[in-house]
């Protein structure tokens, strides 16, 4: 009996080792331990043995059964691992292939700058005001103390639409008419900024027939030029991201402000390029001044009680300076290559807290 068991053990273990796949191994398991397997069949014969042999033989078969089961388990683990290895090797991909394309939109640097302006001045308590691009003479000129005979009112500078119902509409030459509309419809205190489209009859490397301005207006009983200085210095330094940016105010003349000031920022032109910041030179970036008493009176605001200031600057100009865009005309070309290069990601929302620009 012992010899037969040994023989069976040797056979079965040989079969276990010979199995080359988990499927073949399963066949070996069935042929050894299954209901009709070799060990099972052999154990069925135990009953025919004399009782004294039966016990010993039973123990021997059980030991064999355990041994074969253990060998199967071991072999199975080995085969599975080899098969996984093979599968993994077969599933290898070229991870250097490009990922699936995602649409990549960009925001125009001019409009991003618009958002930056809103975010800075919004922090200072300014709210946006808007008005129409097509204006009348009164809002665009007269109420701003620009007399009939002023050169700006001549056709060489200003676009007019064809006469219609006795009116000759004007394409606003600045965002200042929105000052007038606001002062006519609101009572002081007023604190607004007006970003928007403006039009002048000029087309060359540094002038576009359409461009954008942002206007600021503060009217109350106490705001003076010191506040103008404080506000614009803070703005310039925040916008350009230069804490010690020199800002200079100097006298100038505009019909709608008195006293008037032009504002320069520090720059350097050494080496042919233009760098914003402390340097040996100045760059004019905006015009400003105390709102002319006549403008207040045109709007029905008592100029003996209320006062304030206004400023205006070109959005293209400051965007070009900040982002190093060399040519104004490219702003309106809608060239996809330019927009991808100078544009901003849609999730880059300018904010004073989260950062204006990166």
């Amino acid at each position, binding site marked *: 009996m012992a010899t037969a068991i040994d023989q069976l053990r040797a056979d079965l273990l040989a079969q276990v080792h010979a199995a080359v796949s988990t499927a073949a191994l399963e066949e070996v398991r069935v042929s050894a331990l299954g209901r009709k397997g070799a060990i099972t069949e052999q154990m069925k014969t135990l009953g025919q043995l004399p009782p004294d042999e039966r016990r010993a033989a039973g123990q021997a078969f059980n030991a064999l059964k355990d041994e074969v089961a253990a060998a199967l388990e071991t072999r199975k683990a080995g085969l599975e691992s080899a098969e996984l290895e093979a599968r993994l090797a077969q599933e290898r991909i070229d991870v250097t292939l490009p990922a699936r394309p995602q649409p990549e*939109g960009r925001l125009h640097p001019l409009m991003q700058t618009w958002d930056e302006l809103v975010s800075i001045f919004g922090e200072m308590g300014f709210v946006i005001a808007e008005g129409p691009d097509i204006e009348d003479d009164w809002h665009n000129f007269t109420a701003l103390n620009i007399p009939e005979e002023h050169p700006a009112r001549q056709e060489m500078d200003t676009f007019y639409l064809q006469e219609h119902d006795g009116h000759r509409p004007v394409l606003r030459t600045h965002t200042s008419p929105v000052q007038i509309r606001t002062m006519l419809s609101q009572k002081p205190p007023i604190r607004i900024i007006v970003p928007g489209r403006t039009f002048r009859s000029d087309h060359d490397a540094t002038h576009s027939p359409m461009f954008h301005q942002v206007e600021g207006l503060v009217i109350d009983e106490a705001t003076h030029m010191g506040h103008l200085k404080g506000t614009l210095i803070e703005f310039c330094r925040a916008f350009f991201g230069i804490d010690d940016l020199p800002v200079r105010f100097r006298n100038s003349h505009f019909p709608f402000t008195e006293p008037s000031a032009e504002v320069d920022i520090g720059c350097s032109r050494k080496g042919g390029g233009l760098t914003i910041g402390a340097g040996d030179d100045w760059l004019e970036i905006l015009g400003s001044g*105390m709102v002319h*008493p006549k403008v207040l009176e045109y709007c029905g605001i008592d100029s003996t009680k209320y006062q304030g200031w206004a400023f205006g600057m070109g959005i293209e100009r400051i965007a070009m300076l900040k982002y190093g865009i060399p040519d104004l005309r490219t702003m*309106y070309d809608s060239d996809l290559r330019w927009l991808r290069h100078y544009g901003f990601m849609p999730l880059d929302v300018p904010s004073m807290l989260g950062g204006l620009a990166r």
Partner: protein
Amino acid sequence: MKFTLGWLKEHLETEASLEQITEKLTMLGLEVDSVHNPAEALAPFRVAYVIEAKQHPNADRLRVCRVQTADGEIQVVCGAPNARTGMKAVFAPEGSYVPGTGITLKATEIRGEASSGMLVSERELELSDDHDGIIDLSASDPAVGTPFAKVMGLDDPIIEIGLTPNRGDCAGIRGIARDLAAAGLGVLKPAPYSQSVPGSFVSPIGVRLEAGDACPMFVGRYIRGVKNGPSPAWLQRRLKAIGLRPISALVDITNYFTMDRARPLHVFDADKVHGDIHVRFSKPGETLEALDGRTYAADDTMCMIADEKLGEAFGGIMGGEPSGCSDETVNVFVESAWFDPVRTAATGRKLGIHSDARYRFERGVDPQSLMSGAEAAAQMIVELCGGEASEPVIAGAEPNWKRSFGFRPERVAQLTGVSVGKAEVRQTLEALGFTWSEGGHGIAVAPPSWRPDVHGEADLVEEVIRVHGYDAIPVTPLPRLSSLPQPAMTEQQARRPRARRALASRGLLEAVTFSFLPKAQAAKFGGGENKLTVANPISEDLNQMRPSILPNLLDAAVRNRNFGQRSGGLFEVGPQYRDPSAGGQDLMASGIRWGQTGPRHWAEAPRTVDAFDAKADALAALEAAGAPVANAQVAAEAPGWYHPGQSGSIRLGKVVLATFGALHPAILRDYDIDAAAVGFECFLDNIPVPRAKGGKSRSLLKVEPLLPVERDFAFLVAADVSADALARAARQADKTMITEVSVFDVYTGKGVPEGQKSLAVSVTYQPRGATLTDEQIEALGAKVVAAVAKATGGVLRG
């Protein structure tokens, strides 16, 4: 406005440096545009003495010169015929750049003789065209080593300022000097040429004013027996330095006072004037050959200085050739008049003449300067040209310029934040020529005759603060209105950035295009009416206000395709124009896509863009801008620039929120685009404003604990039944249980009868409270089929 430092110092006694002066000018509002010192380019060139000039041993035309220079004796080979022993010449040392030849000098050897540096001619220094020989300074005999610029009086820096239109007084150097003196940079000297010239006879030419306010006053002076010719060197040098060409003494004198005093003058050749001077309006068709050699035609609005026969000069603008002075002129009539600024500007504009006289008259010439101007001219004419002056001819009277207004010095501090003491305020204004008087009613200030721009308190504040200095204005933060900032935008204003960011995140690039386009293009997009036509366009391509943004974007697509961008997408959020009224402008979010949906890719093939790309863009922009897109309806109606069968509109009731679709093939043909192109236009202003009630709280989310059940249905419907109508019908079949209906297949072809299509929808049932039984599911299905059949005539596909 250009002047030289030396000329300025004729009026200003000052120790200030050039830098201090230019800095102060800019801060005073007289912005310095440029400073040019001609001496800089001439710095290397100094006076030298030719110790000996002997014949070159190997060249007939050359001389070998021993030259005594500031740096010792140097040998120079010179080809000039006038090089001679004992002369004073101008030496350019080795290493200097000679502007007339463009060469930097190097030591060399000429025909065997060493030569270092160069003796230069006027042409080589770009002073004249004279190249007959080297400069010979022997006559004035300056010391060896003296800078040549100094010898020539060219060491006078030229300053150019950009004058604001209110400062006509600073169109004369004396006005600039007055400003600087008031600002503490020196003392204003008495004006030169301010003596009175006695008149010894009555002028044979009289003056009659017949043009009313256009010329209210005219002072004339007849000077007989003058000798015209070139003006003296100092006068020529000054005029040349500021870019004026010396012509003759008489003309140069008038130009001199134009610049020096902002006092334009004119000198007629009296022998060419017929009878008296008549200042009258021009006659239509009247022509005049002006001093610039061109003939101009007048209308009936111009102020003409005429004699009894002809127009002789455009008053305040330019004199005429026929009565101009020449070298033969013997008797002259000097004009010192005042012309109305507005009319002068209009006339100048109509004639297209930009003259120094017009520049000053349109800014306002000092109405008190007529007599003094005539006197100064007479004085200088008699001094330089000889002759004898008549008694002045005075016609008319000064225009009324005198005015006075109340002034509270404390307004300076109120408007500027700078406290300037009353004494300083008064001193500043008086230094600028204002008259200060104090009485029982307070302070009154009267501006001087040369300041027509000053009309009230605010103007006086500006005068005080610009002289006191803008640097003194304090830097004061704007007080906060609230401890935390409030939103800067209203809900409507916020639509713009929201729509922009939504569209960019869908892969579109943001464009900014002009508000105008060619009229013919506008007509194809629902516009082109005359009321939106630009009357004075910069070009015919920009002559109409845009009725839609799409044509501009299509134009951009064409340009981009020409650069090889065969596919792409652009959007713009901006205005389009319906009519010229204040409300005739709509804020749009519009965009286009053309070509393929993306680049070719190894894993995913791109497809051609279609109307549904545009629809998705429109919906994204609307949703970001706050439109209730879930409640919106889509109708197959769109304007004519879209493909009639592949376009639609998104509406809320009758309000159109957006249109979208494939662009009409005829439009694409016009633009020469041979690719698919789709577009959308969202009317952001049409989005209803959400009611402000109830704050920001959302409705409570009810999550059903039971799993939803999905069932698919395929219906056969007529080809023109819209998917939206079918889905809507299915949705309405049971408003409680059916929570979602989505169209997942549209099929025509084998198995579907001609004129019909198969639409497959997936319907979601949400059990409430208890799981659905098979019978309930069955019953819901029957309701869906019935509802679809009723609404669309569709039958369940077997």
